[in-house]
Protein backbone atom coordinates (compact mmCIF):
# COMPACT_ATOMS: atom_id res chain seq x y z
CA UNK A 1 0.00 0.00 0.00
CA UNK A 2 2.68 2.53 1.14
CA UNK A 3 2.18 6.07 2.39
CA UNK A 4 3.88 9.28 1.35
CA UNK A 5 4.09 12.69 2.98
CA UNK A 6 5.60 16.04 2.15
CA UNK A 7 6.04 19.39 3.81
CA UNK A 8 7.16 22.86 2.73
CA UNK A 9 7.80 25.81 5.00
CA UNK A 10 7.68 28.88 2.81
CA UNK A 11 10.24 31.54 3.63
CA UNK A 12 11.44 30.03 6.87
CA UNK A 13 13.00 26.95 8.38
CA UNK A 14 11.46 24.57 10.84
CA UNK A 15 12.11 21.29 12.57
CA UNK A 16 11.25 19.26 9.45
CA UNK A 17 12.83 16.05 10.78
CA UNK A 18 10.47 15.88 13.74
CA UNK A 19 7.46 17.08 11.73
CA UNK A 20 7.93 14.52 8.97
CA UNK A 21 8.40 11.81 11.56
CA UNK A 22 4.96 12.66 12.95
CA UNK A 23 3.39 12.62 9.48
CA UNK A 24 4.92 9.28 8.51
CA UNK A 25 4.19 7.69 11.86
CA UNK A 26 0.52 8.61 11.33
CA UNK A 27 0.71 6.59 8.10
CA UNK A 28 2.45 3.56 9.57
CA UNK A 29 -0.63 1.38 8.99
CA UNK A 30 0.10 1.79 5.27
CA UNK A 31 3.38 -0.05 5.72
CA UNK A 32 6.28 -0.21 8.11
CA UNK A 33 8.71 -2.51 6.31
CA UNK A 34 10.90 0.52 5.87
CA UNK A 35 10.69 4.29 6.24
CA UNK A 36 12.66 6.95 4.45
CA UNK A 37 13.21 10.66 4.79
CA UNK A 38 14.51 13.19 2.26
CA UNK A 39 15.27 16.24 4.34
CA UNK A 40 16.44 19.55 2.92
CA UNK A 41 18.45 21.07 5.73
CA UNK A 42 19.90 24.46 6.40
CA UNK A 43 23.49 24.31 5.24
CA UNK A 44 26.06 26.85 4.16
CA UNK A 45 26.01 25.30 0.69
CA UNK A 46 29.81 25.02 0.49
CA UNK A 47 30.28 21.28 0.74
CA UNK A 48 28.48 18.28 -0.67
CA UNK A 49 26.67 16.05 1.79
CA UNK A 50 26.88 12.40 0.86
CA UNK A 51 24.74 9.81 2.63
CA UNK A 52 25.81 6.31 1.69
CA UNK A 53 25.70 2.76 2.89
CA UNK A 54 28.39 0.10 2.88
CA UNK A 55 26.04 -2.74 3.76
CA UNK A 56 22.44 -3.62 4.49
CA UNK A 57 20.40 -3.77 7.67
CA UNK A 58 20.09 -7.50 8.27
CA UNK A 59 17.78 -7.20 11.26
CA UNK A 60 14.48 -8.97 11.72
CA UNK A 61 12.31 -8.90 8.62
CA UNK A 62 15.16 -8.02 6.30
CA UNK A 63 15.53 -9.89 3.01
CA UNK A 64 19.29 -9.13 2.88
CA UNK A 65 22.09 -11.61 3.32
CA UNK A 66 24.15 -11.22 6.46
CA UNK A 67 27.76 -10.12 5.97
CA UNK A 68 30.71 -9.93 8.31
CA UNK A 69 30.85 -6.41 9.73
CA UNK A 70 34.56 -6.22 8.94
CA UNK A 71 33.56 -6.01 5.25
CA UNK A 72 31.95 -2.63 5.98
CA UNK A 73 35.28 -1.23 7.22
CA UNK A 74 37.06 -2.52 4.12
CA UNK A 75 34.51 -0.86 1.85
CA UNK A 76 34.74 2.40 3.79
CA UNK A 77 38.49 2.43 3.37
CA UNK A 78 38.14 2.06 -0.39
CA UNK A 79 35.51 4.84 -0.49
CA UNK A 80 37.89 7.13 1.40
CA UNK A 81 40.74 6.38 -0.97
CA UNK A 82 38.56 6.92 -4.07
CA UNK A 83 37.36 10.27 -2.72
CA UNK A 84 40.97 11.30 -2.30
CA UNK A 85 41.86 10.04 -5.80
CA UNK A 86 39.15 12.27 -7.30
CA UNK A 87 40.61 15.37 -5.70
CA UNK A 88 37.88 15.64 -3.10
CA UNK A 89 38.37 16.04 0.62
CA UNK A 90 36.32 14.66 3.49
CA UNK A 91 35.58 17.63 5.75
CA UNK A 92 33.35 15.87 8.24
CA UNK A 93 32.57 12.23 8.82
CA UNK A 94 29.75 10.59 10.79
CA UNK A 95 29.07 6.90 11.13
CA UNK A 96 25.58 6.60 12.55
CA UNK A 97 25.44 2.83 12.16
CA UNK A 98 28.05 0.28 11.06
CA UNK A 99 26.55 0.24 7.55
CA UNK A 100 25.42 3.85 7.25
CA UNK A 101 27.61 6.92 6.88
CA UNK A 102 27.35 10.65 6.30
CA UNK A 103 30.22 12.61 4.78
CA UNK A 104 30.62 16.30 4.15
CA UNK A 105 32.90 16.57 1.15
CA UNK A 106 34.77 19.46 -0.38
CA UNK A 107 34.59 18.59 -4.08
CA UNK A 108 35.32 21.62 -6.21
CA UNK A 109 35.00 19.82 -9.54
CA UNK A 110 31.39 18.91 -8.74
CA UNK A 111 31.04 16.19 -11.39
CA UNK A 112 28.57 14.01 -9.52
CA UNK A 113 28.20 11.47 -12.34
CA UNK A 114 31.91 10.70 -12.41
CA UNK A 115 32.08 10.83 -8.61
CA UNK A 116 29.17 8.50 -7.94
CA UNK A 117 30.16 6.05 -10.68
CA UNK A 118 33.57 5.73 -9.06
CA UNK A 119 32.22 5.30 -5.53
CA UNK A 120 29.50 2.86 -6.57
CA UNK A 121 32.00 0.75 -8.51
CA UNK A 122 32.83 -0.67 -5.08
CA UNK A 123 30.58 -3.74 -4.60
CA UNK A 124 28.12 -3.27 -1.74
CA UNK A 125 28.41 0.51 -1.67
CA UNK A 126 25.46 2.72 -2.61
CA UNK A 127 25.11 6.47 -2.41
CA UNK A 128 21.71 7.21 -0.91
CA UNK A 129 21.89 10.91 -1.67
CA UNK A 130 24.29 13.60 -2.70
CA UNK A 131 23.75 17.32 -2.72
CA UNK A 132 24.35 20.52 -0.85
CA UNK A 133 21.10 20.43 1.08
CA UNK A 134 19.50 17.00 0.62
CA UNK A 135 19.97 14.16 3.07
CA UNK A 136 18.25 10.85 2.38
CA UNK A 137 17.93 8.63 5.42
CA UNK A 138 16.16 5.31 5.00
CA UNK A 139 16.14 2.10 6.93
CA UNK A 140 13.94 -0.77 8.02
CA UNK A 141 11.15 -0.12 10.52
CA UNK A 142 8.53 2.54 11.10
CA UNK A 143 9.03 6.30 11.09
CA UNK A 144 9.75 6.63 14.78
CA UNK A 145 12.23 3.76 14.81
CA UNK A 146 14.20 5.23 11.90
CA UNK A 147 14.00 8.77 13.30
CA UNK A 148 15.34 7.61 16.66
CA UNK A 149 18.03 5.43 15.08
CA UNK A 150 19.41 8.33 13.04
CA UNK A 151 18.65 11.20 15.47
CA UNK A 152 16.58 13.09 12.92
CA UNK A 153 14.42 14.87 15.48
CA UNK A 154 16.64 17.94 15.57
CA UNK A 155 17.09 18.39 11.83
CA UNK A 156 16.07 21.88 10.76
CA UNK A 157 15.21 22.69 7.15
CA UNK A 158 12.75 24.18 4.70
CA UNK A 159 11.12 21.14 3.14
CA UNK A 160 11.01 17.38 3.22
CA UNK A 161 9.39 14.32 1.66
CA UNK A 162 9.07 10.87 3.13
CA UNK A 163 7.77 7.37 2.61
CA UNK A 164 6.36 4.54 4.73
CA UNK A 165 6.77 1.33 2.74
CA UNK A 166 4.87 -1.90 2.49
CA UNK A 167 7.17 -4.00 0.30
CA UNK A 168 5.30 -5.50 -2.65
CA UNK A 169 7.48 -5.33 -5.75
CA UNK A 170 10.91 -6.02 -4.26
CA UNK A 171 12.73 -7.00 -1.09
CA UNK A 172 12.66 -5.61 2.41
CA UNK A 173 15.99 -3.84 2.35
CA UNK A 174 17.46 -0.35 2.34
CA UNK A 175 18.29 -0.38 -1.36
CA UNK A 176 14.58 -0.83 -2.21
CA UNK A 177 13.39 1.72 0.34
CA UNK A 178 12.31 5.20 -0.67
CA UNK A 179 13.20 8.04 -1.17
CA UNK A 180 15.33 7.50 -4.24
CA UNK A 181 18.05 9.92 -5.17
CA UNK A 182 17.68 11.44 -8.66
CA UNK A 183 21.16 10.20 -9.61
CA UNK A 184 23.37 11.96 -10.64
CA UNK A 185 21.62 15.26 -9.98
CA UNK A 186 22.45 17.17 -6.85
CA UNK A 187 19.62 17.44 -4.30
CA UNK A 188 16.92 15.54 -6.26
CA UNK A 189 14.79 12.94 -4.45
CA UNK A 190 11.60 10.99 -5.18
CA UNK A 191 8.97 9.08 -3.18
CA UNK A 192 6.19 7.08 -4.75
CA UNK A 193 2.96 5.32 -3.82
CA UNK A 194 1.69 2.87 -6.43
CA UNK A 195 2.83 0.32 -8.99
CA UNK A 196 4.49 0.92 -12.34
CA UNK A 197 3.66 -1.68 -14.94
CA UNK A 198 6.16 -0.71 -17.63
CA UNK A 199 9.14 -0.76 -15.31
CA UNK A 200 11.25 -3.29 -17.21
CA UNK A 201 10.65 -1.74 -20.64
CA UNK A 202 11.60 1.69 -19.34
CA UNK A 203 14.53 0.31 -17.39
CA UNK A 204 16.02 -1.36 -20.47
CA UNK A 205 15.64 1.84 -22.50
CA UNK A 206 17.13 4.03 -19.77
CA UNK A 207 20.02 1.66 -19.05
CA UNK A 208 20.87 1.74 -22.74
CA UNK A 209 21.06 5.51 -22.38
CA UNK A 210 23.60 5.13 -19.57
CA UNK A 211 21.29 5.63 -16.58
CA UNK A 212 21.92 3.63 -13.39
CA UNK A 213 19.53 1.49 -11.35
CA UNK A 214 20.51 0.23 -7.92
CA UNK A 215 17.45 -1.80 -6.95
CA UNK A 216 14.65 -3.74 -8.56
CA UNK A 217 12.03 -1.50 -7.00
CA UNK A 218 9.69 -0.08 -9.64
CA UNK A 219 9.59 3.27 -7.86
CA UNK A 220 13.26 3.87 -8.59
CA UNK A 221 12.22 4.22 -12.22
CA UNK A 222 10.56 7.58 -11.46
CA UNK A 223 13.80 9.09 -10.14
CA UNK A 224 15.79 7.74 -13.09
CA UNK A 225 13.10 8.73 -15.60
CA UNK A 226 13.01 12.33 -14.35
CA UNK A 227 16.81 12.51 -14.12
CA UNK A 228 17.10 11.43 -17.77
CA UNK A 229 14.58 14.07 -18.85
CA UNK A 230 16.44 16.74 -16.91
CA UNK A 231 19.77 15.57 -18.35
CA UNK A 232 18.30 16.31 -21.77
CA UNK A 233 17.33 19.82 -20.76
CA UNK A 234 13.76 19.45 -19.50
CA UNK A 235 12.70 21.34 -16.41
CA UNK A 236 11.47 19.35 -13.44
CA UNK A 237 7.85 20.25 -14.19
CA UNK A 238 8.22 19.30 -17.87
CA UNK A 239 9.69 15.95 -16.87
CA UNK A 240 6.86 15.33 -14.42
CA UNK A 241 4.18 16.16 -16.99
CA UNK A 242 5.88 13.86 -19.48
CA UNK A 243 5.88 11.07 -16.89
CA UNK A 244 2.07 10.96 -16.88
CA UNK A 245 2.14 9.30 -20.28
CA UNK A 246 5.63 7.76 -20.10
CA UNK A 247 4.94 5.81 -16.92
CA UNK A 248 2.22 3.20 -17.00
CA UNK A 249 0.40 2.05 -13.90
CA UNK A 250 -1.03 3.77 -10.87
CA UNK A 251 0.97 6.32 -8.97
CA UNK A 252 1.13 9.41 -6.86
CA UNK A 253 4.65 10.66 -6.37
CA UNK A 254 6.57 13.60 -4.92
CA UNK A 255 9.84 14.89 -6.24
CA UNK A 256 11.94 17.48 -4.43
CA UNK A 257 14.96 19.58 -5.28
CA UNK A 258 16.85 22.16 -3.27
CA UNK A 259 14.45 24.91 -4.36
CA UNK A 260 11.24 23.15 -5.31
CA UNK A 261 8.86 20.35 -4.48
CA UNK A 262 6.30 18.81 -6.82
CA UNK A 263 3.54 16.21 -6.92
CA UNK A 264 2.10 14.17 -9.78
CA UNK A 265 -0.94 11.94 -9.88
CA UNK A 266 -1.68 9.39 -12.59
CA UNK A 267 -4.57 9.79 -15.00
CA UNK A 268 -6.57 7.04 -13.27
CA UNK A 269 -6.30 8.87 -9.92
CA UNK A 270 -6.01 5.46 -8.34
CA UNK A 271 -3.68 6.46 -5.53
CA UNK A 272 -4.68 8.89 -2.82
CA UNK A 273 -3.32 12.31 -1.97
CA UNK A 274 -4.65 15.00 0.32
CA UNK A 275 -3.26 18.50 0.09
CA UNK A 276 -3.24 21.58 2.27
CA UNK A 277 -1.81 24.87 1.08
CA UNK A 278 -1.47 28.26 2.78
CA UNK A 279 0.80 31.29 2.38
CA UNK A 280 3.45 29.87 4.69
CA UNK A 281 2.95 26.11 4.57
CA UNK A 282 2.21 23.26 2.17
CA UNK A 283 1.48 19.86 3.68
CA UNK A 284 0.44 16.74 1.82
CA UNK A 285 0.05 13.07 2.47
CA UNK A 286 -1.67 9.88 1.45
CA UNK A 287 -4.23 10.50 4.16
CA UNK A 288 -5.48 13.57 5.98
CA UNK A 289 -4.41 12.02 9.25
CA UNK A 290 -0.77 12.71 8.25
CA UNK A 291 -1.46 16.41 7.78
CA UNK A 292 -3.29 16.52 11.12
CA UNK A 293 -0.10 15.57 12.91
CA UNK A 294 1.35 18.98 12.02
CA UNK A 295 -1.89 20.95 11.73
CA UNK A 296 -4.32 19.80 14.40
CA UNK A 297 -6.66 22.78 13.87
CA UNK A 298 -9.53 22.65 11.36
CA UNK A 299 -8.18 23.37 7.87
CA UNK A 300 -9.33 23.19 4.26
CA UNK A 301 -7.82 20.26 2.40
CA UNK A 302 -8.53 18.76 -1.00
CA UNK A 303 -7.65 15.88 -3.29
CA UNK A 304 -5.76 16.83 -6.46
CA UNK A 305 -7.50 15.51 -9.57
CA UNK A 306 -6.37 12.83 -12.02
CA UNK A 307 -3.34 13.73 -14.15
CA UNK A 308 -2.55 16.75 -11.99
CA UNK A 309 1.01 18.02 -11.64
CA UNK A 310 1.92 20.80 -9.22
CA UNK A 311 5.31 22.28 -8.42
CA UNK A 312 5.97 24.72 -5.58
CA UNK A 313 9.04 26.93 -5.39
CA UNK A 314 10.56 27.10 -1.94
Amino acid at each position, binding site marked *: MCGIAGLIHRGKSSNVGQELQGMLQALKHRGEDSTGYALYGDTDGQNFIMRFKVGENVGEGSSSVMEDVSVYDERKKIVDSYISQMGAKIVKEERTLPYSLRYEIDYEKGDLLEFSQKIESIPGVEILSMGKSLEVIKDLGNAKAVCDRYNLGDLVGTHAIGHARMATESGVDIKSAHPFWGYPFSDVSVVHNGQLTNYWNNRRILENKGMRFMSECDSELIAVYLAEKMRNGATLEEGMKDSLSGLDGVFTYFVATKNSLGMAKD*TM*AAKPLVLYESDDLVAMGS*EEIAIRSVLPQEIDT*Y*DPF*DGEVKVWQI
Partner: protein
Amino acid sequence: MANLKTTEKKTKAQSMGLHTEVLTGKTQQKFFNPDEAENFYYWGTYDVDFNKRTELDVNDMDCKEANKKIDELMSQGYGTIVIKNPQGKHSLGVGILNKLNLIFEGSLGYFGVGSIDGPTVRVNGRVGWSCAENMMAGKVVIEKNAGSCFGAAVRGGDLICKGSVGARTGIDQKGGTIIIGGDAGAFTGFMMQRGRIVVLGNVGINLGDSMYDGTIYVGGKIGSYGSDAIESPMTKSDIDWLKRKLKVAEIGENFDVSKMTKVVAGKKLWNYDALEPTEKKGAI
Protein backbone atom coordinates in the same frame (compact mmCIF):
# COMPACT_ATOMS: atom_id res chain seq x y z
CA MET B 1 -23.39 -27.31 -14.93
CA ALA B 2 -22.15 -30.62 -13.63
CA ASN B 3 -24.82 -32.93 -12.30
CA LEU B 4 -24.58 -32.65 -8.54
CA LYS B 5 -27.76 -34.52 -7.86
CA THR B 6 -26.05 -37.84 -7.45
CA THR B 7 -25.30 -38.49 -3.80
CA GLU B 8 -21.68 -39.36 -4.37
CA LYS B 9 -20.87 -36.15 -6.22
CA LYS B 10 -22.94 -34.06 -3.82
CA THR B 11 -21.12 -35.44 -0.79
CA LYS B 12 -17.79 -34.86 -2.44
CA ALA B 13 -18.70 -31.29 -3.32
CA GLN B 14 -19.96 -30.64 0.20
CA SER B 15 -16.78 -32.00 1.71
CA MET B 16 -14.92 -29.46 -0.38
CA GLY B 17 -17.09 -26.69 1.04
CA LEU B 18 -18.96 -26.07 -2.21
CA HIS B 19 -22.60 -25.15 -2.50
CA THR B 20 -24.72 -27.79 -4.14
CA GLU B 21 -27.97 -25.99 -4.86
CA VAL B 22 -29.33 -26.70 -8.28
CA LEU B 23 -30.04 -23.28 -9.74
CA THR B 24 -33.21 -23.02 -11.74
CA GLY B 25 -33.47 -19.68 -13.43
CA LYS B 26 -33.27 -16.28 -11.77
CA THR B 27 -32.08 -15.89 -8.21
CA GLN B 28 -35.08 -15.73 -5.92
CA GLN B 29 -34.92 -12.39 -4.12
CA LYS B 30 -37.03 -11.83 -1.04
CA PHE B 31 -37.96 -8.30 -0.08
CA PHE B 32 -39.11 -6.91 3.24
CA ASN B 33 -42.83 -7.39 3.80
CA PRO B 34 -44.52 -4.94 6.24
CA ASP B 35 -47.12 -7.61 7.08
CA GLU B 36 -44.34 -9.66 8.61
CA ALA B 37 -42.80 -6.70 10.45
CA GLU B 38 -43.43 -8.13 13.90
CA ASN B 39 -41.24 -11.09 13.02
CA PHE B 40 -38.51 -8.80 11.83
CA TYR B 41 -35.79 -7.60 14.17
CA TYR B 42 -33.26 -5.09 12.86
CA TRP B 43 -30.27 -5.85 15.02
CA GLY B 44 -28.27 -2.94 16.43
CA THR B 45 -30.96 -0.25 16.20
CA TYR B 46 -32.22 2.06 18.93
CA ASP B 47 -35.18 4.35 19.54
CA VAL B 48 -33.63 7.74 20.13
CA ASP B 49 -34.93 11.17 21.11
CA PHE B 50 -33.67 13.95 18.81
CA ASN B 51 -34.08 16.47 21.62
CA LYS B 52 -31.67 14.54 23.80
CA ARG B 53 -28.31 15.99 22.80
CA THR B 54 -24.75 15.30 23.83
CA GLU B 55 -21.16 15.96 22.75
CA LEU B 56 -18.36 13.46 22.37
CA ASP B 57 -14.69 14.44 22.10
CA VAL B 58 -12.89 11.69 20.16
CA ASN B 59 -9.47 13.35 20.13
CA ASP B 60 -7.90 10.63 22.28
CA MET B 61 -9.95 7.73 20.96
CA ASP B 62 -9.27 5.37 18.10
CA CYS B 63 -12.10 4.68 15.66
CA LYS B 64 -13.25 1.51 17.44
CA GLU B 65 -13.54 3.28 20.77
CA ALA B 66 -15.32 6.24 19.20
CA ASN B 67 -17.85 4.08 17.34
CA LYS B 68 -18.49 2.02 20.42
CA LYS B 69 -19.11 5.20 22.40
CA ILE B 70 -21.57 6.47 19.76
CA ASP B 71 -23.39 3.14 19.97
CA GLU B 72 -23.50 3.42 23.74
CA LEU B 73 -24.93 6.95 23.57
CA MET B 74 -27.63 5.82 21.12
CA SER B 75 -28.53 2.96 23.44
CA GLN B 76 -29.08 5.62 26.15
CA GLY B 77 -31.54 7.37 23.85
CA TYR B 78 -29.39 10.27 22.65
CA GLY B 79 -30.73 11.36 19.28
CA THR B 80 -28.38 14.27 18.59
CA ILE B 81 -24.68 13.57 18.97
CA VAL B 82 -21.97 16.13 18.22
CA ILE B 83 -18.51 14.66 17.61
CA LYS B 84 -15.64 16.97 18.52
CA ASN B 85 -12.09 16.68 17.16
CA PRO B 86 -12.48 13.83 14.65
CA GLN B 87 -9.02 14.86 13.33
CA GLY B 88 -9.26 12.97 10.05
CA LYS B 89 -9.68 9.60 11.73
CA HIS B 90 -10.88 6.71 9.59
CA SER B 91 -14.16 4.77 9.77
CA LEU B 92 -15.98 7.06 12.19
CA GLY B 93 -19.78 6.84 12.45
CA VAL B 94 -20.10 3.60 10.51
CA GLY B 95 -22.92 1.05 10.70
CA ILE B 96 -25.58 3.29 12.26
CA LEU B 97 -28.92 1.70 11.41
CA ASN B 98 -31.42 4.03 13.06
CA LYS B 99 -32.53 7.65 12.90
CA LEU B 100 -30.00 9.97 14.47
CA ASN B 101 -28.64 13.51 14.14
CA LEU B 102 -24.91 13.06 13.94
CA ILE B 103 -22.73 16.14 13.60
CA PHE B 104 -18.96 16.03 13.12
CA GLU B 105 -17.17 19.24 14.11
CA GLY B 106 -14.17 18.63 11.85
CA SER B 107 -12.92 16.33 9.11
CA LEU B 108 -13.11 12.57 8.65
CA GLY B 109 -10.58 10.19 7.10
CA TYR B 110 -11.37 7.15 4.97
CA PHE B 111 -14.64 5.19 5.06
CA GLY B 112 -16.52 7.75 7.18
CA VAL B 113 -20.20 7.01 7.92
CA GLY B 114 -20.17 3.84 5.83
CA SER B 115 -22.99 1.28 5.76
CA ILE B 116 -25.53 3.55 7.43
CA ASP B 117 -29.28 3.15 7.23
CA GLY B 118 -31.23 6.17 8.38
CA PRO B 119 -29.18 8.81 10.20
CA THR B 120 -28.85 12.46 9.21
CA VAL B 121 -25.15 13.31 9.22
CA ARG B 122 -23.46 16.66 8.84
CA VAL B 123 -19.68 16.90 8.52
CA ASN B 124 -18.42 20.43 9.11
CA GLY B 125 -15.16 19.62 7.37
CA ARG B 126 -13.76 17.34 4.70
CA VAL B 127 -14.07 13.58 4.20
CA GLY B 128 -11.51 11.13 2.82
CA TRP B 129 -11.96 8.23 0.41
CA SER B 130 -15.12 6.13 0.31
CA CYS B 131 -17.38 8.31 2.42
CA ALA B 132 -20.86 6.80 3.03
CA GLU B 133 -19.94 3.62 1.19
CA ASN B 134 -22.90 1.24 0.97
CA MET B 135 -25.29 3.78 2.52
CA MET B 136 -28.87 2.45 2.56
CA ALA B 137 -30.89 5.47 3.68
CA GLY B 138 -30.58 8.82 5.43
CA LYS B 139 -28.91 12.09 4.55
CA VAL B 140 -25.22 12.98 4.66
CA VAL B 141 -24.02 16.55 4.10
CA ILE B 142 -20.32 17.37 3.72
CA GLU B 143 -19.57 21.07 4.08
CA LYS B 144 -16.12 21.02 2.42
CA ASN B 145 -14.41 18.69 -0.09
CA ALA B 146 -14.46 14.90 -0.35
CA GLY B 147 -11.93 12.32 -1.51
CA SER B 148 -12.29 9.65 -4.16
CA CYS B 149 -14.96 6.93 -4.28
CA PHE B 150 -17.47 9.29 -2.67
CA GLY B 151 -20.68 7.33 -2.18
CA ALA B 152 -19.31 4.04 -3.48
CA ALA B 153 -22.10 1.47 -3.86
CA VAL B 154 -24.74 3.62 -2.16
CA ARG B 155 -28.18 2.06 -2.31
CA GLY B 156 -30.38 4.87 -1.08
CA GLY B 157 -30.60 8.23 0.69
CA ASP B 158 -29.09 11.60 -0.16
CA LEU B 159 -25.36 12.18 -0.12
CA ILE B 160 -24.30 15.79 -0.57
CA CYS B 161 -20.86 17.37 -0.84
CA LYS B 162 -20.84 21.16 -1.01
CA GLY B 163 -17.23 21.27 -2.23
CA SER B 164 -15.38 19.20 -4.85
CA VAL B 165 -14.85 15.44 -4.89
CA GLY B 166 -12.10 13.15 -6.19
CA ALA B 167 -12.30 10.33 -8.74
CA ARG B 168 -14.85 7.52 -9.10
CA THR B 169 -17.71 9.29 -7.32
CA GLY B 170 -20.72 6.98 -7.17
CA ILE B 171 -18.75 3.96 -8.34
CA ASP B 172 -21.08 0.95 -8.37
CA GLN B 173 -23.97 3.15 -7.19
CA LYS B 174 -27.12 1.11 -6.74
CA GLY B 175 -29.62 3.78 -5.75
CA GLY B 176 -30.12 7.08 -3.96
CA THR B 177 -28.83 10.50 -4.94
CA ILE B 178 -25.35 11.99 -4.85
CA ILE B 179 -25.09 15.78 -5.20
CA ILE B 180 -21.79 17.63 -5.68
CA GLY B 181 -21.62 21.41 -5.39
CA GLY B 182 -18.17 21.76 -6.98
CA ASP B 183 -16.18 19.67 -9.45
CA ALA B 184 -15.84 15.88 -9.67
CA GLY B 185 -12.81 13.88 -10.85
CA ALA B 186 -12.34 11.10 -13.40
CA PHE B 187 -14.61 8.06 -13.74
CA THR B 188 -17.61 9.69 -12.05
CA GLY B 189 -20.47 7.18 -12.07
CA PHE B 190 -18.14 4.30 -12.95
CA MET B 191 -20.18 1.08 -13.23
CA MET B 192 -23.22 2.91 -11.87
CA GLN B 193 -26.30 0.71 -11.77
CA ARG B 194 -29.13 2.81 -10.40
CA GLY B 195 -29.80 6.17 -8.78
CA ARG B 196 -28.76 9.68 -9.72
CA ILE B 197 -25.62 11.79 -9.55
CA VAL B 198 -25.77 15.58 -9.80
CA VAL B 199 -22.56 17.59 -10.32
CA LEU B 200 -22.95 21.36 -10.50
CA GLY B 201 -19.34 21.94 -11.59
CA ASN B 202 -17.05 20.21 -14.09
CA VAL B 203 -16.34 16.49 -14.29
CA GLY B 204 -13.14 14.74 -15.38
CA ILE B 205 -12.53 12.10 -18.01
CA ASN B 206 -14.50 8.89 -18.59
CA LEU B 207 -17.81 10.07 -17.13
CA GLY B 208 -20.23 7.19 -16.60
CA ASP B 209 -17.79 4.58 -17.85
CA SER B 210 -19.42 1.14 -18.02
CA MET B 211 -22.63 2.39 -16.46
CA TYR B 212 -25.55 -0.05 -16.49
CA ASP B 213 -28.30 2.41 -15.67
CA GLY B 214 -29.01 5.49 -13.59
CA THR B 215 -28.73 9.16 -14.53
CA ILE B 216 -25.94 11.71 -14.20
CA TYR B 217 -26.57 15.46 -14.46
CA VAL B 218 -23.61 17.76 -15.05
CA GLY B 219 -23.68 21.55 -14.80
CA GLY B 220 -20.16 22.29 -16.08
CA LYS B 221 -17.77 20.85 -18.62
CA ILE B 222 -17.32 17.13 -19.20
CA GLY B 223 -13.71 15.88 -19.64
CA SER B 224 -14.85 12.94 -21.77
CA TYR B 225 -17.51 10.24 -21.81
CA GLY B 226 -16.69 6.69 -20.82
CA SER B 227 -17.85 3.73 -22.84
CA ASP B 228 -21.62 3.12 -22.57
CA ALA B 229 -22.42 6.69 -21.46
CA ILE B 230 -24.42 8.95 -23.76
CA GLU B 231 -26.20 12.30 -23.60
CA SER B 232 -29.96 12.34 -23.28
CA PRO B 233 -32.42 15.27 -23.58
CA MET B 234 -33.51 16.99 -20.39
CA THR B 235 -37.23 16.66 -19.69
CA LYS B 236 -39.55 18.75 -17.56
CA SER B 237 -39.63 16.03 -14.92
CA ASP B 238 -35.80 16.11 -14.80
CA ILE B 239 -35.88 19.86 -14.22
CA ASP B 240 -38.58 19.65 -11.58
CA TRP B 241 -36.78 16.85 -9.78
CA LEU B 242 -33.44 18.73 -9.85
CA LYS B 243 -34.98 21.93 -8.49
CA ARG B 244 -36.65 20.03 -5.69
CA LYS B 245 -33.57 18.02 -4.85
CA LEU B 246 -31.16 20.97 -4.83
CA LYS B 247 -33.49 22.87 -2.53
CA VAL B 248 -33.58 19.98 -0.09
CA ALA B 249 -29.82 19.71 -0.37
CA GLU B 250 -29.40 23.42 0.49
CA ILE B 251 -27.14 23.80 -2.51
CA GLY B 252 -27.12 25.65 -5.86
CA GLU B 253 -30.04 27.91 -4.96
CA ASN B 254 -29.73 30.07 -8.10
CA PHE B 255 -28.39 27.36 -10.37
CA ASP B 256 -30.06 27.07 -13.77
CA VAL B 257 -30.74 23.34 -13.86
CA SER B 258 -32.33 23.49 -17.31
CA LYS B 259 -28.87 23.97 -18.84
CA MET B 260 -27.42 20.86 -17.27
CA THR B 261 -26.27 17.90 -19.37
CA LYS B 262 -28.08 14.64 -18.75
CA VAL B 263 -26.08 11.46 -19.18
CA VAL B 264 -27.50 7.94 -19.25
CA ALA B 265 -26.41 4.43 -20.19
CA GLY B 266 -26.26 3.87 -23.92
CA LYS B 267 -26.72 0.15 -23.85
CA LYS B 268 -29.59 -2.13 -22.99
CA LEU B 269 -28.85 -5.02 -20.69
CA TRP B 270 -31.11 -8.01 -21.12
CA ASN B 271 -32.72 -9.32 -17.97
CA TYR B 272 -31.57 -6.23 -16.08
CA ASP B 273 -34.05 -4.86 -13.58
CA ALA B 274 -33.50 -1.13 -13.25
CA LEU B 275 -35.98 -0.61 -10.45
CA GLU B 276 -34.94 -0.20 -6.84
CA PRO B 277 -36.66 -2.57 -4.39
CA THR B 278 -39.03 0.14 -3.16
CA GLU B 279 -39.84 1.23 -6.73
CA LYS B 280 -40.39 -2.38 -7.71
CA LYS B 281 -42.82 -2.85 -4.88
CA GLY B 282 -44.75 0.22 -6.05
CA ALA B 283 -44.80 -1.02 -9.62
CA ILE B 284 -46.14 -4.40 -8.59
